[in-house]
């Protein structure tokens, strides 16, 4: 994958954004990223197509799950030297608060990075980092067999 190859050569925000922009579903959801020092934050820009419940209103649970899964992939692509986009093996999502109609942020952390498999955790929040709206963990395949 060319955007991933470029990111391996240039670990900076511009190349990470270019990787995200090369993924159609990331563009569809409206995912962005910011790098400050060694801290990577993924951003889900709010727009109407993300809403699941118009009465609350609240962001669709599937969108939050999709964002967290994408955030784990992007985080792994950022911290590793993988040649392929990491592929999910399993993902567990805990829904903690309803997602309000505003931007959502996520940060990931690698729990274990083996040769073939990585275990990642991620948390998403809106108005305050210590009030997460969702958390997820997952195993990802880092090498195509």
């Amino acid at each position, binding site marked *: *994958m060319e955007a991933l190859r470029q990111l391996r050569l240039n670990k900076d925000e511009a190349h990470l954004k270019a990787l995200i922009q090369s*993924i159609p579903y990331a563009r*569809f959801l409206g995912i962005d990223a910011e790098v400050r020092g060694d801290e990577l934050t993924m951003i889900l820009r709010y727009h109407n197509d993300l809403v699941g419940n118009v009465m609350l209103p609240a962001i669709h649970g599937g969108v939050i799950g999709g964002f967290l899964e994408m955030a784990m992939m992007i985080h792994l692509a950022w911290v590793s030297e993988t040649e392929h986009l990491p592929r999910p093996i399993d*993902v567990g999502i805990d829904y903690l608060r309803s997602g309000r109609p505003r931007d959502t942020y996520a940060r990931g952390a690698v729990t274990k990075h083996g040769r073939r498999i990585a275990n990642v955790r991620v948390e998403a929040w809106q108005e305050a980092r210590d009030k997460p709206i969702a958390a997820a963990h997952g195993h990802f395949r880092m090498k195509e067999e």
Partner: protein
Amino acid sequence: MSDSSFLEQIRAQGSMIMGFAPHSRAIGMQMVSVEPDVAILMVPYAPELVGNPDTGVVHGGVITSLLDNASGLSVGCHTGERKGMATLDLRIDYMRPATPGENVYARAECYKVTNNIAFVRGIACHSKDGELQLADPIASCVATFMITGGPIPDINTMIALAAAGERPAESAGG
């Protein structure tokens, strides 16, 4: 223990109800069928849902949305009524990539409801000659929901909103 009038109502108005959630509408989600305890939904293949541009495979997040929706609907298919619900957790195992160009189906079954918690399991797969390929799953899931009794609009309000392509009241949430 499903109330057949609920299922009949969902069958008659399912496509309108699917259109009610802007995100479900945005990814083209459709209701395939409902029966006691079981809901089947489908998302058509679309280039904007691709997660890996090299392979054209749909992103797992699309499968997550589909399984989440089907799971939630299956709870109503079990209880026979529409109630406000919140997803507590959703765990998904990915068995194989979805085939590029093919629609993805999800079959969810609510197998137990306690006082206020619903337990669901589901499978995402393709369909061949009108038959769900459940033995060759793309993904499987287990989900738990809390039945909150929170606000839900009556079905006619939902249909009117969906028909109008209504935007949510963005100022109402705070």
